[in-house]
């Protein structure tokens, strides 16, 4: 048996210090909290998608007795997969077309919002987090501090992930309340969230978010300015949002193990993406002197 000998000068990297990762994340979140100019628009966005738009539409469908509107909305039922239509009929077999339509809207058609909101918020935070250090000159402080590149990356990842996912969870709670209050009385009581929604929120959304952030953070580490990072992140994450939109919708329309598989694949891709993304953070890039900066 031969022993592996490390080359001269080589030193095995230390595992990231959890406390330093959390310190970086906490400080970034504190700065975000101190910037209402950033988070107020994000709250407005979340409020619109999770509360205003669903509440307005569901209220209109269930309380305004305009036959043309009900017919138009009721037509949405025909585009749903058979499994979804069966679920609706099982839940409210004798309900009117308007009620069935509102149930379909609440359970199936607003699902992608749960993906779009966190991705939009987290992309906005993540796009700025590394290039922002460089632009403000604070990258110099971090480059000279005893924090490893990986600790920094993980801290920034958490700081980008938390605002988007937290907003989504809170929005999801409020959304549940809204749809139960508006549609619930017509379908025999509180019905939301369904099992598929729990799966979506806890198993499918997080890896899609992490995968998107792995790309965004890599961009943020490499580009020259925050504006360029925002633009590039927007372009790069658009396909990711579309895929996530389609997958999350599909996850709600299917049953059983299929939804778990979507999450599993997303998790694997996210972990690979994060591992590769961590390499993009270097001290030279924090200092803005890396030759690769584009």
């Amino acid at each position, binding site marked *: 048996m031969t022993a592996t000998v490390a080359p001269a000068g080589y030193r095995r990297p230390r595992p990231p210090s959890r406390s*330093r990762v959390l310190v970086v994340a906490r400080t970034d979140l504190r700065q975000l909290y101190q910037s209402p100019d950033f988070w107020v628009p994000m709250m407005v966005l979340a409020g619109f998608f999770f509360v205003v738009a669903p509440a307005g539409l569901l209220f209109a469908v269930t309380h305004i007795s305009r036959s043309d509107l009900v017919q138009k909305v009721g037509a949405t039922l025909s585009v749903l997969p058979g499994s979804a239509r069966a679920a609706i009929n099982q839940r409210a077999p004798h309900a009117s077309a308007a009620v069935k339509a509102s149930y379909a809207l609440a359970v199936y058609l607003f699902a992608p919002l749960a993906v779009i909101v966190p991705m939009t918020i987290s992309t906005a935070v993540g796009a700025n987090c590394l290039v922002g250090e460089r632009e403000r000159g604070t990258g110099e402080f971090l480059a000279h501090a005893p924090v490893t590149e990986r600790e920094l990356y993980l801290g920034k990842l958490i700081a980008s992930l938390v605002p988007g996912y937290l907003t989504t969870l809170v929005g999801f709670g409020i959304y549940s309340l809204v749809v139960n209050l508006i549609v619930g009385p017509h379908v025999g009581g509180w019905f939301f969230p369904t099992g598929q929604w729990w799966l979506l929120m806890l198993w499918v959304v997080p890896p899609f978010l992490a995968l998107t952030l792995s790309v965004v953070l890599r961009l943020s580490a490499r580009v020259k300015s925050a504006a360029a990072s925002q633009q590039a992140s927007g372009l790069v994450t658009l396909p990711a949002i579309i895929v996530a939109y389609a997958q999350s919708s599909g996850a709600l329309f299917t049953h059983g193990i299929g939804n778990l598989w979507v999450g599993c694949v997303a998790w694997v891709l996210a972990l690979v993406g994060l591992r590769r993304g961590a390499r993009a953070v270097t001290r030279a890039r924090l200092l803005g002197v890396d030759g690769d900066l584009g």
Partner: protein
Amino acid sequence: MAETPVVELCAVRRAFGSHLALDGLSFAAAPGTVTVLLGPNGAGKTTAVRMITGALRTDDGSVRTFGLDPAVHGADVRRRCGVVSAKPALYDRLSGWDNLVYAAELYGLGPAAPIEESAARFGIEDALGLRVGGYSTGMKTRLALARAVLHNPDLLLLDEPTSGLDPESSRAVLHLIDDLAAQGRTVIMCTHLLLEAEGLADQVVMLDQGRALVAGPPDELVRQVWPRPWLVIDAEDRRTLHRVRAVPGVVSVDAPEDGPWRVELDDLARVPDLVTELAFHGLRLTRVAPHEPTLEELYFALRGGPAASPALGEPVMPRVRVG
């Protein structure tokens, strides 16, 4: 046996694209000394500081900080360094307190971190609750200094610490640096302000285009460049000063049209004889004073420039010392 240098750079090269930032830079800083890296913008001072903490790697040559290679043992090196960069590198949206807490946590100081003491040391304790975005430039520099010494570092690296400060604040900051050095810390300071280096430096490293032109204690460097003493003399009638050329011991004379003359002597002990001789010939001297060449004169003598010294004759180029 000589003490191991805290910092030792040996033939370090580093390029950014086609630009060569460091071109074989060598110098060493002994423990408890103040080393001033002196040079114009773009001379390589900041890059040298970044190499010392391992924030940047060398293309060639070697760097040792506390005897370690910072490219390999970066975390160990950085834990013992305090850095004040040219821009204060503070988080404007956070308070002064939060900025110091962040540093304390990254350096693993825990709840017992001397945040208030550190701030008080630089007279910034009353502003700790305010957002740094509202600080003046002087306050930011003081906070950056407080942050740099928070973890009681063995080596302080100060990159243009008085940049953008008014003269009063600059002086206060230089006093603080002097105090830190007096406490036994090794200080490496970058500046392009020659007056800052004067009186503060135990060692000056003059950089130009990524190379050390000279390195050594300021008075020693001056002696190496101008080994003989200089005298400034003036008379009521400057036209009579030409007689000085004939006085024994005078090696050379610099005679500007619009100012006092400077005279190079073979020995300062010649001054009484020189004065007596000139007085004997009827010269009414109004000024006789030894001339101590400044770092500024040395700098321009070595680099060439507006104050390059025809006034002080041709410089003798000294060697760069390492160690």
